[in-house]
């Protein structure tokens, strides 16, 4: 491995550590999904995780806000360790936004209500203030005019942008993206990626599970390749794409880049 591994980059910049995964293991019944995962993410870092389906990449980021429970190892998010303690879990979830592959907007609430809900009920913000903030973020993702509509009336790309706005309304310190563009029509992928690039430029700490290699090349500080529940390779995007170290990575890249 060359000397400028990501970890050395981390120690050079003196940004605080936001996420630390230390020897994390997870099993679904007998099936060992995550095998000794070690990952440190500092503030403002943008990390893209890729890998074949079933490699555990989604499970890995879902462990960070405890949508999945890990059985061994330590996960510390923003200085709080994830244990069975519900207080800790809710504290972390307040600071970690998540965007899902299938948007998961609340279909019975309008776009505005979707966005204002968590600030009102979790942050105890007055309704009017929460709605003002929601409108600000809806403007940021360029759909303020849809505020009074229901999610079912929007296109996939619009729904995903609402989902991003909904997360941002909680002013999260970390954003997790779980294949945010995989369920979208090709025409709509760009509008979502544009929002994500904008977020990255503002210095948001981001972890993205995605197959958008263009996004990885332009935005990521680090690309992580996972297979079989392990981190196979971890590098800056330039070296990752031009000079992949492991054979498995080379094979994966050749399959997704040359079709």
């Amino acid at each position, binding site marked *: 491995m060359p000397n400028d591994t990501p970890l050395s980059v981390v120690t050079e910049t003196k940004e605080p550590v936001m996420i630390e995964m230390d020897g994390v293991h997870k099993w679904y019944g007998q099936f060992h999904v995550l095998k000794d995962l070690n990952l440190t993410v500092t503030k403002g870092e943008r990390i893209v995780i890729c890998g074949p389906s079933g490699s555990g990449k989604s499970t890995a980021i879902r462990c960070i806000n405890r949508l999945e429970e890990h059985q061994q190892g330590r996960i510390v998010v923003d200085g709080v360790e994830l244990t069975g303690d519900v207080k800790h879990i809710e504290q972390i*979830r307040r600071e970690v936004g998540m965007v899902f592959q299938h948007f998961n907007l609340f*279909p019975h609430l309008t776009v505005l209500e979707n966005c204002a809900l968590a600030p009102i009920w979790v942050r105890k913000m007055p309704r009017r203030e929460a709605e003002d903030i929601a409108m600000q973020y809806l403007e940021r993702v360029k759909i303020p005019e849809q505020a009074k509509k229901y999610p079912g009336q929007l296109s996939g790309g619009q729904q995903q942008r609402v989902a991003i706005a909904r997360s941002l309304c909680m002013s999260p310190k970390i954003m997790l993206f779980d294949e945010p563009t995989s369920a979208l029509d090709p025409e709509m992928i760009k509008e979502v990626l544009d929002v994500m690039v904008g977020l990255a430029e503002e210095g948001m700490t981001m972890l993205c599970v995605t197959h958008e290699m263009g996004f990885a090349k332009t935005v990521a500080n680090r690309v992580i390749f996972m297979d079989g529940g392990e981190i196979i390779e971890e590098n800056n995007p330039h070296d990752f794409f031009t000079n992949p170290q492991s054979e498995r990575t080379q094979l994966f890249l050749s399959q997704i880049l040359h079709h």
Partner: protein
Amino acid sequence: MMTHTPHPDLPPPITSVGAVGWLRRNLFSSPLNTALTVLAAYLLYLLLPPIISWAFLNADWVGDDREACNSGGACWVFIRSRFDQFMYGFYPEAQRWRVNIVLGGLAIGMVLLMIRMFPYKNWLGAFMLLGYPILALTLLAGGVFGLETVETSQWGGLTLTLIIAIVGCVASLPLGILLALGRRSEMPIVRAICVVFIEFWRGVPLITVLFMSSVMLPLFLPEGVNFDKLLRALIGVTLFEAAYMAEVIRGGLQAIPKGQYEAAAGLGLGYWRSMGLIILPQALKLVIPGIVNTFIALFKDTTLVIIIGLLDLLNTVHNATTDPNWLGYSIEGYVFAAAVFWIFCFSMSRYSQNLEQRLHTGHRR
């Protein structure tokens, strides 16, 4: 480069829209359908005229006793002469204004709640759920503020039917929600309690429940402790219906995609807020048909209280048909009872359909 001229929108063919289109599509779309249409029309021709002539054209409407019924049609005089009893049971005549106020207030409250534009909906809703039952009970039972006491054994007729049905519905819904949530809980003890409760109450017939509540329960209670019979029936009906309600609601909870739970959790909403704000509003909306189905079944099951000697609408009618002065007019009595039940059940059904439409937010998946 070719320029594309969009194809203009054309009107549909005349035979596929309007009344003609509707007839073609629905009644005469195929030879079999045409034959069925003709057959149905013939059956209606056979059945309807005699029914109409019995119930309306040849019926007797005015009079004081059975002498007035001599035209061969239905004898609605019987219903008219017993109407008050069918409505109030044996509630003292001089006190019936109390029942009128209670039921009138209920009707006004419900109509106001159904008006979408009504501004104080939340306050009224809270009053109807919390304040109104106490007021209604006080007014009906009396014994305070100089109101004459009316024993629950004197309550009867449609009044009693409505009391049991409404209390059963209003009390069993929240209990059912809690049981449904409990049955899906991750806490084994809570889950076990809910499963046992639901399976027990679902496994016994309502008649048994009512019978046990009036015959068995006093055996287990210490001497002198005496529950009101109506109260015992209400509790029995509520617990029984709650078990059914729980399973209906559980069906709705299971239909909510996992992503909704995850999105709610991911935003930092705790269990009760996730349920109350995200999951239950969607789940309950999904199972409105099932909930109303249970309500309608409950409404009709109230007639079973005859087993413990309470006289609801049907049983009051039944008693009246055994009156020697009116022997032979039981058909009129039962038709009347059926019509009243039908009106209430059909209204519930229509209201639920209206509610479904109103709550629909264009989400089809």
